[in-house]
């Protein structure tokens, strides 16, 4: 097992190196440079040249890449041009906020998705199945940013149950209650699509398992139906549900970009969008590499979990 994990970790290194090359190349190739973005109307060639020199952007690209990579390996992600603070400080702060949002959404969509899928499968073609299928289809079809705006109009502007945006109250205690009231709407908006996808795939995974012999045997032995479904069948179905959860975790993380903008959640998605528009090169590069590394690590964790659940998968 330890060997398998080590092998997977080693295989992540070329992937991450490839990502650093790609993100650096994209930032170098897109038109528009940070000096022009900072100077705006005043971007005369003379001013741009001086500012580029001040920002250390007058060196050759290859040299810039290796300086960046070398610094990053030592934990120095550089200084953000647009925010005037170390990239790593901004990243960690923002990533924490994204983890809270995406993590909550992920827990919600896994829990409700799997539950809905199991109920649907157990009651195949029954009323519960049809009702769930209908709701799930609706959920998959609504884009999260649109759902978010509608939620703001209804629950924040009209009913005033929740605050419109942000993560913490501007005044008042920064306690769990305050966080929950700010988190509820964005987490739900983010979870809805993934819940639908997970529910549909859990349903088919469960249906496949429920047709198998060991289920018939369990029922014949007189095992209570609740136990058959939630213990015997679900456990077997989890082997095919877990990779789906892994993929959905990635979707939730990338979907957070839209939701973070609509709800002004101070997360890494909103940060990246702002940084790209301002050509804040180091923040974009650092942010993408950081998020990619997390994604790769998460995938490794999913593979490991899967191999633990199903010994047939070769380690």
């Amino acid at each position, binding site marked *: 097992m330890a060997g398998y994990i080590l092998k997977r970790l080693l295989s992540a290194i070329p992937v991450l190196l490839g990502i650093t090359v790609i993100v650096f190349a994209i930032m170098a190739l897109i038109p528009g*440079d940070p000096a022009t973005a900072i100077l705006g109307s005043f971007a005369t060639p003379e001013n741009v040249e001086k500012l580029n020199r001040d920002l250390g952007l007058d060196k050759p690209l290859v040299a810039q890449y290796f300086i960046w990579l070398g610094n990053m390996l030592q934990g120095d992600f550089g200084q953000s041009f647009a925010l005037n603070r170390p990239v790593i400080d901004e990243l960690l702060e923002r990533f924490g906020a994204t983890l809270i949002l995406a993590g909550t959404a992920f827990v919600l969509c896994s829990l409700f998705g799997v539950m809905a899928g199991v109920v649907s499968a157990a009651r195949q073609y029954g009323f519960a199945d049809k009702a769930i299928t209908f709701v799930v289809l609706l959920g998959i079809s609504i884009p999260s940013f649109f759902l978010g*705006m509608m939620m703001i109009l209804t629950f924040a502007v009209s009913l005033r149950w929740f605050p419109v945006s942000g993560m913490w109250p501007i005044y008042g205690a920064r306690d769990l209650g305050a966080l929950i009231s700010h988190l509820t709407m964005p987490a739900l908006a983010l979870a809805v699509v993934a819940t639908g996808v997970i529910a549909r795939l859990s349903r088919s995974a469960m249906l496949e398992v429920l047709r198998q012999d060991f289920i018939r045997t369990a029922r014949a032995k007189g095992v209570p139906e609740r136990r058959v479904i939630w213990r015997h069948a679900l456990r077997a179905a989890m082997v095919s549900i877990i990779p789906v959860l892994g993929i959905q975790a990635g979707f939730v993380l990338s979907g957070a970009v839209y939701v973070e903008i609509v709800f002004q959640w101070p997360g890494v998605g909103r940060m990246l969008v702002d940084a790209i*528009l301002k050509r804040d090169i180091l923040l974009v590069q650092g942010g993408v590499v950081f998020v990619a590394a997390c994604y790769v690590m998460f995938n490794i964790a999913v593979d490991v979990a899967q191999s633990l659940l199903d010994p047939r998968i070769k380690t």
Partner: protein
Amino acid sequence: MTVLTWTRRSVLAASAAFGLSLGLSAPTLAQTPPGVLIVGQIAEPKALDPAAVTAVNDFRILMNVYDGLVRYKDGTLEVEPALATAWEISEDGTVYTFSLREGVTFHDGSAFDAAAVKFNFDRMLKEDHPYHDTGPFPLAFFFSAVQEVTVIDPLTVQFTLDAPYAPFLSNLAYPTGLIVSPAAVEQHGAEFGRNPSGTGPFTFAEWRSNEAVVIEANPDYWDGAPASQAVVFRPISDANTRTAEMLAGGIDLMVEVPPVALSEFAGDAYTLHEQAGPHVWFLILNAKEGPFADVRVRQAANYAINKSAIVNDVLEGTAAVAAGPTPPAFAWAYNESLEPYPYDPEKAKALIAEAGAEGAELTFYVTEGGSGMLDPVAMGTAIQADLKAVGFEVTIETYEWNTFLGEVNPGLEGKADMAQMAWMTNDPDTLPYLALRTEAWPENGGFNSGYYSNPEVDKLLEDARSATDQAERAALYQEMQTIVQEDAPWVFVANWKQNAVTSDRVESFALQPSFFLLLKDVVKN
């Protein structure tokens, strides 16, 4: 059945949890506290160091924390004393001597004096200054004419310029000229932008990244204590979310209301503020090659485009029709006798026929959005339709803002016939000097991307720069506007009216033509 029973119970449990979270959250939804003004900003500030920032968004905070030597008189773009009580300008216009206000201290307790003024400008301009590395200072060129700053005595400071430069005083009133505390720069170094200290009506209290910047009243302010206890600036970059926050009572003052949201604030609970500013939105025409090389075709474009329709229908009245290159907000330098080109497609067609340019194919650069560009895609489409009506086939090419600047600033030659552009400036000198002179063609490092050239305009602009008498300058600028309107190097389209909405708990708020947000006298009930 067991499966469903379980689900029903779980639904109950979930609703209970939901209700609990509502109960917990109730106190956070209370109204914003009295005496504390909450402002919805369009973005997170970069830094609170006036020498290091370039964005209007950051200026809105800075103008309340710092003072400059001079400032704009309320409701105008004319300078009046601030930290300097008086000044003298030498005969030849190159030496400015300022008398400084006595007894002013920075928020950190250190004294404001001539040495502090010298520190500020040397830090920005001299590469060997010990604190020059706290930059970069992208707008330092506003003061590039300054050769030397000399301390005459603690309350007198002298600026020596390398040549007469009339916009110097209004550049001092611009945020780049705000005076920071040398002691605070020495203490915090490059971190000064997060630990600001000035002499202004509010002192910096707290900056919570991506959440809020809080400033508190300075009771000892030399020009009287502010009317509110504190101001909180919240960055809310999405315009729809900003509107929703205003409607839900999460902010008291919102800037840059999108035109489509204006109707939301029609009721008595809100006040809508509008103020035309030093902004002009125009089309650069390529006067070097193609149909627009002929002045008649350039004039025809000005006649063909229905500017009132753009201003009223596309922009919902958030802008006024522009008459010439200088915005009317520069009241002292504006030529009142200029009338905008009327919408007259017949006259346009006649001029085009005269020039033999019927049915010409034009390439038109449009941006998706950018600083001061209003609603460029919708405006570009309307312009395309108006030009089609007089027989031009216009092909639009759309670019993201930074890419757009990279295409337009180096000049339109060989690429396009026309391009959108907008400028916001603080002196009537800036835009024409950088974008209309022959010396300002792109290859010389200027912004004259359409290659307009008229020696008479060049001379007027040079003369206006070296004149120090305001009336003399005004006359020169007014003559320049008449000539430029006639030559039509641009299609003059719109002057943006900045807007803001306040709730009925806010009193004594007014927007300024400078587009700065001055909050000292604003009352929050």
